[in-house]
């Protein structure tokens, strides 16, 4: 005991004094009056139109194509004109607190997590959730920290679970399958059931949930496979031993064609962004930011070289480059909290449609988006209590249906 105490103190000596009092106080001033009664909300909405007139897309460019590969589907569906928000249901026995972490191509399936009450003396594990056309299913997955990462159009969910080790699971139609490999983290699954992620420090793919992992790239390559297209093209965020000290910091991007051929993908020559982390990938479109999320955030089409800077880091992208944007979900001083106009679906050509706030009990909550379906008709995320006054309901899983 004495030794452990001593070692913890030695480690704590590395800490700096994080002088955040001023910043915390400024943010608190902006938040005290945020919990709006319904009448206040209307005033805030009106104010936001002028205060938060944010440029939808920043700088853009189109370099020469940098890699061969599948282009985005040629004919995007009509861009949505309106959206409405509704709360996703919870299973019996769980409080409302819940988040969305992804969904399938069609909008039928959405995945996320539920949380036991903070007053539950047993501190049970988080609950992995699957919504099928709005009906919720609780997935029984072992582990203390269970993170549903992706789901395909057949309802097959891939999950990373941290318990006595880091383990990958596939859940499909009631069958839970542990993926082969030690220290597995999963990232994505396509509609063919091919799964990608990492095994230890190596990027990896699994042709199916029962297959052995295939390590990607040369033996020296470290990183994580972050996405897989329907034709089997895989994108890897490459790391080095140096960049792994900050797990979000990348050394580069690599693409693996369906035949296994690897291509390094350089950042476009005219780009004004750097690639430090990847937050989402789909059909050639990559969303990311600088190291540890430093701005500018970007939207980048790997095959065509088209790129745009984004006003904020996004967590999802469609095959047409449509990105759900959540500006200022937790406002700071000088920024007015107003759900309307601050959360929207954005297309690369600048079109946008508002994702409106919840109404009723959660009407004063800020919004955060995490998923968009291929056709943009379904967007999902969570509403967040900016006051933290409701620990069992400070996140509420939300779906927007658009048309």
């Amino acid at each position, binding site marked *: *005991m004495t030794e452990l105490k001593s*070692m*913890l103190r030695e480690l*704590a000596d590395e*800490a700096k004094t994080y002088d955040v009092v001023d910043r915390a106080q400024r943010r608190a001033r902006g938040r*005290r009056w945020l919990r709006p009664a319904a009448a206040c909300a209307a005033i805030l909405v009106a104010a936001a139109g002028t205060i938060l007139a944010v440029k939808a897309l920043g700088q853009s460019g189109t370099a020469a194509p940098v890699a061969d590969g599948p282009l985005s589907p040629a004919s995007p569906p009509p861009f949505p004109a309106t959206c409405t928000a509704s709360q996703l249901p919870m299973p019996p026995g769980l409080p409302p607190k819940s988040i969305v972490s992804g969904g399938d191509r069609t909008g039928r399936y959405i995945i996320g997590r539920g*949380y036991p009450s*903070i007053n539950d*003396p047993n501190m049970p594990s988080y609950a992995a959730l699957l919504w099928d056309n709005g009906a919720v299913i609780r997935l029984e997955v072992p582990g203390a920290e269970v993170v549903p990462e992706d789901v395909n159009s057949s309802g097959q969910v891939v999950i990373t679970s941290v318990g006595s080790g880091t383990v990958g699971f596939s859940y499909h139609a009631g069958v839970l399958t542990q993926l082969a490999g030690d220290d597995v983290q999963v990232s994505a699954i396509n509609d063919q059931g091919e799964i990608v992620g990492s095994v230890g420090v190596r990027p990896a793919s699994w042709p199916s949930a029962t297959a052995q992992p295939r390590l990607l790239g040369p033996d020296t390559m470290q990183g994580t496979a972050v996405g897989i297209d329907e034709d089997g093209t895989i994108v890897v965020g490459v790391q080095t031993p140096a960049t792994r000290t900050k797990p979000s910091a990348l050394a580069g991007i690599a693409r693996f064609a369906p035949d296994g051929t690897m291509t390094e993908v350089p950042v476009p020559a005219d780009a004004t962004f750097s690639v430090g982390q990847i937050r989402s990938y789909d059909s050639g479109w990559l969303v990311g930011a600088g190291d540890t999320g430093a701005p500018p955030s970007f939207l980048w089409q790997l095959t065509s070289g088209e790129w745009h800077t984004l006003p904020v880091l996004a967590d999802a992208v469609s095959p047409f480059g449509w990105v759900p944007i959540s500006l200022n979900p937790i406002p700071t001083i000088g920024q007015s909290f107003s759900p309307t106009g601050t959360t929207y679906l954005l297309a690369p050509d600048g079109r946008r449609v508002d994702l409106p706030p919840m109404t009723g009990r959660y009407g004063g909550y800020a919004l955060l988006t995490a998923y968009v379906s291929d056709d943009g008709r379904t967007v999902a995320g969570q509403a967040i209590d900016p006051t933290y006054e409701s620990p069992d309901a*400070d996140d509420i899983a939300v779906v927007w249906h658009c048309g």
Partner: protein
Amino acid sequence: MSAERRAAVEDGFREFATARLGALSRTAYLLTGDHHAAEDLLQDVLVIVAVRWSRVAAADNPMAYVRRILYHELVSSWRRGRYRRAEVSSDQLPEHPDPRDETTTVDRRVLLRRALARLTPRQRAVIVLRFFEDLSEADAAAALGCSVGTVKSQTNYALKRLRETAPELAEFSEVTR
């Protein structure tokens, strides 16, 4: 609230937070293992404390109240990946090791940091509460909002994992209280 009253409240918060900034920084660093993540965590916690300052100040033990917010924020916000930067083990030595340190001390820090990174946020919180903050099981349970029995079981599980992931640190095997 009048401007005068608001200013008094803000002064009270500032005095409280500034006096405890060093201690809270050390705890936040142990909980996250990363300077940026610790700074983010501490700032988020202090925002909540500032918003609720009237209630915090009126509590019998304001620091216990703050501690509960800190640990709740760590565990609940881990879901957003906000403080997870250091949850993957590091193969590197500290960025700026103290030149006065002996190599063995630096090595122990690296091993401990790596082992802590393999714990879940709740396991990590239990270790820091019990063995760094030196809280009793009852106080640790209050901070985490759980039962004493849960603290016991989580502590045992966390120590077991530390032994498994850092067998080089034989000292863990002596931790049996």
